[in-house]
């Protein structure tokens, strides 16, 4: 997957977890939590969905890398390059 495809994939997951949020104006370089009402359970859901959909494991110590769309893509890119 390319960097852009990963961002789209994460957005798709967020749209399922937080169906009431308007994701059209989301800034990719700003923390998700500053733009959306996401709590730590929502981030756990994102991790579970990433595992389910793309067989990628995000260890607890790396949760910080999921802060913004950009940082998600940078972090996940090497893990998803063959998917």
């Amino acid at each position, binding site marked *: 997957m390319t960097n852009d495809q990963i961002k789209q994939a994460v957005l798709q997951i967020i749209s399922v*977890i937080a169906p009431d949020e308007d994701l059209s104006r989301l800034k990719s370089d700003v923390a998700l939590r500053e733009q959306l009402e996401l*709590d*730590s*359970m929502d981030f*756990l*859901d994102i*991790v*579970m969905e990433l*595992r*389910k959909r793309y*067989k990628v*494991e995000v260890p*607890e110590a790396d949760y910080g890398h999921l802060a913004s769309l950009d940082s998600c893509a940078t972090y996940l890119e090497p893990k998803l390059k063959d998917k």
Partner: protein
Amino acid sequence: MTRDWLKGVKDEYDAIIIGSGLAGMTAANRLATCGYSVLLLEHHYNFGGMATWFKRKGGHIFDISLHGFPIGMIKTCRKYWSADIAESIVQLKGIRFDNPQFSFTTSFDRADFTDKLVNHFKIPADTVEEFFKFARGMNFYDDQKITTRELFERYFPGRPDVWRLLMEPIAYANGSTLDDPAITFGIVFSNFMSKGVYTFQGGTDKLITKMKATLKANKVDLRHHALVEKVLLEQGRVAGVVCNGRTIRAKSVLSNANLKSTIHKLVGDEHFSPEFLREAAAVRLNSSSCQVYMGVRKGESIPYVGDLFFTSTHPEFDTEALNSMAVTSRTYSFYYPDTRPGSDRYAIVCSTNANYADWITLSEEDYRREKDKLIKGVVDTLERYLPGVSAKIDHLEASTPRTFEYYTRHMAGASFGTKFEGLKISQNLSKAIGGLFHAGSVGIIMSGWLGAINYGVIMANEVDKYLRQDVAVPAPVREETPPAMSESHV
């Protein structure tokens, strides 16, 4: 011949869940929606664990723990159950206090508590604001040595009346005390302060019925009257369970039984390392409860006097007094007809915290006498606020720590799980025994309906992670990790 409650159960599952409390049911649902084969085993005839109810002659229905939980429950139910379940969650607006220090009604949210603290208790607005901010910001990575007492000393020194306002409802909600880590208070209190106290309209029976239907639709194999006697291990890993005398194999087992029962009874001490057992032995169980159930006769009604009523004649907040048999500090939950729309019935349930040790040592005769005394104290107190109410009550019944022990099989009848240190042991169980997980009321924060459901989700995530690994790898090494959560789940 006795009925075979396990008829049709398969020989093997991906996951077996022991116990159908809200954590167990939620974990089962999550794992089933991930595509795993799941068997849920419940020893009782009803599902729900402490989220339960019972019926009595005369058309009475009594809820054990329906009132109330924080607003976070709406989002949690929508995500992990269904929009339909989430839509039945409604606010309880009348929370009333009456004790020697203060007497008023509150909506139990930040705006109204700020108003009470500033205008009634005359605390500077800045202090109140700072306190709320601090409590809201507390998380697991904070220093856990500061106790709730020290937190209160910092913001409200010499104000036992304020301490009582802040602490008493939380002590009823989760059995915590002034000497527990402040984080246990901060998280639970902040969750309630967000938007107040909520309940499930339709009653516990409706909620559990809907959850059961969802589990069935997601192909979870649900069994009641199914008592798990043992968790089976092979080469240090989970291999299945023995239930009603029958062996059922599984790749993973998630226990929603009490944490201590899981370790000492279901698995057995011989399977744990001495250091794990030392830590497990240091885990304190939380206190137990008594409840008195008052059913109002059909055709009779009581006026609206609030939904939750905290009453006491004790001079100030005092954990020992709260748990003692001579308790005067009680919570009354009032269930009006709109609890179950279409019904015309009223019920009142009074809860008090209790020590198991006080009740277990009684002779049968003394036990009956103490129960009668408990009921009389509860009804007499209510009569002072609602004159004539006792003549309208046609069903009276009490439960004690013995009753909680009987129905939940929790060690010492614990009705709020374990103290704070239990959380780490619960989370590390799978590091001691591969494939064995625990979800249930632990650590004070992971208790209550919302805490239990969220913890079920957190541990289902761990089971999923485990099941996706190559099951042939050797048993994992023991190590310690910080809890996965950085903030409130309760």
